C-alpha cells in the first residue's frame, strides 16, 4: 500500500512537471481545430482544416504574431453532439484557449456552453443555426451567415424565381436541417405559399422509395431539402430511378462533390444556397494558388470562412497585445476587419451583420455556378 502511494505521488508530480513545461513554451500558440475528421460529413471538416492550416502557414511564414508561431491541433467530433462535448472538455484540459469550430450546428451548440464557461474563444466557420448565438455568450463568434438568412434567401428565390405550383419541404430531423426547413416554410407561408408537405426523414436511412412515391402522388414540382448531401444524394438518385423529376434545392450542407458521386446524373441542376465563392475573390488569389499547390481543394464553402476565423484571431492578438480570450472577444466585437471573406463586422450576439449567401446551381461533375 505504501509503495503504491509513493508511486502515485511520483506519477502526479511528473504530471505536474509536464504541465509546467508546456506552459513555459509560450512562443507557440495552439489553436484548436474542432470538427468532423471522420464520419459521413468529414468532407466539411476537411474544408475547415484546409482553410485554417493555410492561414496558419501564411501567418507563420510572415513571422508569426508578435514573434509567436501558431500551431493547429485537430480534434475530431465526428459531427456527434456527445463527442463534441468530450472534445470541448479535452480542448479545455489541454490548455487551448482559441478554437476554430465546431462544424455541425448540433455539435457547436453543446460545445459552446463549455467554451463560454471555461473562457475559451470560439469562432465557428460553418455552423449556421441561429440558436448558437442566442444565449448571449461573450466568447462565441461565427464567420458564416445564419440559417435564418440562408433560409430567407432560399425562400425568396422560390417565391420570385422558381414559382413552383406544389412545393414540398423535407428535412433530416437534425438541428441544422430542420431549422432551415422551418425557416423556409415560415417565410413561404408568410408570403401565402402553402407547402403541400413538410416531413422529416431519418439521417442514415438508405431507402426513400416510400417518400418519393408520396411526392409523386402529391404532384410536387419543387422540393426544398434541409440537411446534408448523403441523404439528398440518395433521394435524387432514387427519384430519377422512379421517374420523379421535380426541381430540388438545398442549403450549403449539400454543396460538395460527393453529392454528384452519389446522385450521378440526377445532381445536375440542383439548386443550393451557399456562402459566396470566396476562392473567386481576387484578394484570395495567392491563397488559392498556395492551397492548390498543396494538392488540396480551395473551392469548398468553408475553406475561406475558416481562413477568416484565424485572421480575426491574429488581428485581435496583435491589437490587444495578448492572448486573453475575453479581451480578444471584446476587440473582435468592436472592430470590423477586412478578411478573406470581405469586411467582417459583428452585432453584439456574435453574428455577422452582413449576409454572404448566394444561390448556386450544382452540376453532375461536382462543380457549381452562380444563379443570377
Amino acid at each position, binding site marked *: 500500500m505504501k509503495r503504491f502511494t509513493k508511486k502515485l505521488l511520483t506519477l502526479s508530480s511528473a504530471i505536474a512537471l509536464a504541465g509546467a513545461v508546456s506552459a513555459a513554451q509560450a512562443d507557440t500558440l495552439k489553436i484548436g481545430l474542432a470538427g468532423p475528421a471522420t464520419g459521413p460529413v468529414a468532407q466539411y471538416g476537411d474544408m475547415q482544416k484546409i482553410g485554417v492550416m493555410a492561414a496558419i502557414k501564411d501567418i507563420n511564414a510572415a513571422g508569426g504574431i508578435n514573434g509567436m508561431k501558431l500551431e493547429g491541433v485537430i480534434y475530431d467530433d465526428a459531427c456527434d453532439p456527445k463527442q463534441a462535448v468530450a472534445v470541448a472538455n479535452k480542448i479545455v484540459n489541454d490548455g487551448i484557449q482559441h478554437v476554430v469550430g465546431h462544424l455541425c450546428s448540433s455539435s457547436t451548440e453543446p460545445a459552446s456552453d463549455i467554451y463560454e464557461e471555461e473562457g475559451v474563444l470560439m469562432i465557428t466557420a460553418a455552423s449556421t443555426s441561429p440558436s448558437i448565438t442566442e444565449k448571449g455568450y461573450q466568447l462565441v463568434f461565427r464567420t458564416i451567415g445564419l440559417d435564418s438568412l440562408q433560409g430567407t434567401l432560399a425562400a425568396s428565390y422560390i417565391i420570385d424565381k422558381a414559382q413552383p405550383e406544389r412545393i414540398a419541404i423535407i428535412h433530416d430531423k437534425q438541428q441544422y436541417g430542420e431549422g432551415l426547413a422551418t425557416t423556409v416554410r415560415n417565410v413561404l407561408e408568410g408570403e401565402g405559399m402553402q407547402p403541400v408537405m413538410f416531413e422529416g426523414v431519418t439521417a442514415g436511412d438508405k431507402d426513400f422509395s416510400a417518400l418519393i412515391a408520396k411526392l409523386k402522388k402529391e404532384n410536387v414540382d419543387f422540393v426544398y431539402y434541409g440537411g446534408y448531401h448523403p441523404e439528398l444524394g440518395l433521394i435524387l438518385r432514387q427519384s430519377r430511378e422512379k421517374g420523379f423529376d421535380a426541381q430540388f434545392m438545398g442549403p450549403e450542407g449539400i454543396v460538395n462533390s*460527393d453529392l454528384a458521386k452519389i446522385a450521378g446524373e440526377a445532381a445536375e441542376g440542383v439548386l443550393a444556397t451557399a456562402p459566396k465563392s470566396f476562392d473567386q475573390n481576387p484578394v484570395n488569389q495567392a491563397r488559392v494558388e498556395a492551397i492548390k499547390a498543396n494538392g488540396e481543394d480551395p473551392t469548398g464553402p468553408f475553406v475561406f470562412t475558416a481562413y477568416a476565423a484565424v485572421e480575426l484571431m491574429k488581428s485581435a492578438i496583435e491589437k490587444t497585445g495578448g492572448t486573453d480570450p475575453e479581451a480578444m472577444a471584446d476587440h473582435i466585437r468592436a472592430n470590423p476587419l477586412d478578411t478573406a471573406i470581405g469586411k467582417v463586422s459583428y452585432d453584439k450576439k456574435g453574428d455577422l451583420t452582413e449576409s454572404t449567401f448566394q444561390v448556386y446551381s450544382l452540376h453532375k461533375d461536382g462543380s457549381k455556378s452562380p444563379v443570377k
Partner: protein
Amino acid sequence: MTETLLYLIQQLINGLTIGSTYALIAIGYTMVYGIIGMINFAHGEIYMIGSYVTFIVIAGLLGMGMVSLPIILIIALVVAVFIASTYGWTVERVAYRPLRGSNRLIPLISAIGMSIFLQNYVVLAQGSRDVALPPQITGGWTFGDPAVFEVSFSYMQALIWGATFVTMTALTLFISRSRMGRACRACSEDLGMTNLLGIDTNRTIALTFIIGAALAAVAGLLLGLYYGVVNPFVGFIAGLKAFTAAVLGGIGSIPGAVLGGLVLGVTEALTSAYFPSEYKDVVSFGLLVLILLFRPSGLLGKPEVEKV
C-alpha cells in the same frame, strides 16, 4: 384503376422491397441464433464488408475494361461471398469459440466488441465517406396511367425479392434435409449431447457462421447495387433493423425472419405513405412492442420450453 389503389400498390412494392432487404440480413442473424442461441452483433458488419468488396471488385473490373455485366456480377458475388465467409469464420474462431460455455452475456459483449472493431477497421482502411457506384442494373416495369399515377417496379427490386425467396427456401431445405443440417439441428437442441454422440460441434458451428456470412455478402452485393452507396456505418443500422425483423418473426426461425422483415418493411412504407414519414420508426417499433406483448416468441417462433 384509381390513383388511391395505384398508390397503395406502389407503396406495397416499396415496402416489400425494403422488407426483403431486412429479411436477407435477418436470415443470417436468426440462423446463428437458432444453432447456438447467441446474437451475433457483428453480422451487420459482415454485410457492410460484403458491400465494400462488391464495390471494389466491380469498380476494378469496370476499370479493367470488362463490359459484360452478368460476368462482372458473378465474379463480384464469388469474391464477396468468399471474403465475407472468411471474416465470418475468423470472427467465430477468434471472438466466440474461446468463450463457448461461459455465461451467455460474455459472448454478447464480445460480439458487440467485434462489431465496433470491424466498423472502425473499415473506417481506417477505406475512409469514412460514402463510396458510390453508378447504377448497374437499370430499368423496370411500369404500369398504370401516367396521367393518374404510374407504378414502377424495377428489375433491381425484382432481383431482391427473388434472392430473398431463393435463399429462404434453400436454407430451409438445407436445415431440414441435409446431413449437415441435421447436425445443426442437433447442436441447437443440446450442444453437449451432440458432442458426446461424436458430431464435431465446433465444425458445425463454424459452418453456421460461414453460411451466415455468405448470406450477408449476398445481401451486401444486392443492397450495395440497389442503393449504390456504402459507408462503414451501414452495417450497424441494417443490423439493427434485421435484428428487429428476426425478433419480430421469431428468432431462430428462417421463414420467421423473412416474414418479420416483410412485416417491418411494409409497416414502414405504409406509415410513410399515409402519415408524416417522421413517424415511420415510431409506428414500426410500436408494432414490435405490441406483437411481442401478445406473442413473446415472435410471429413464427416456437414458445420457449425451459429445459430441466
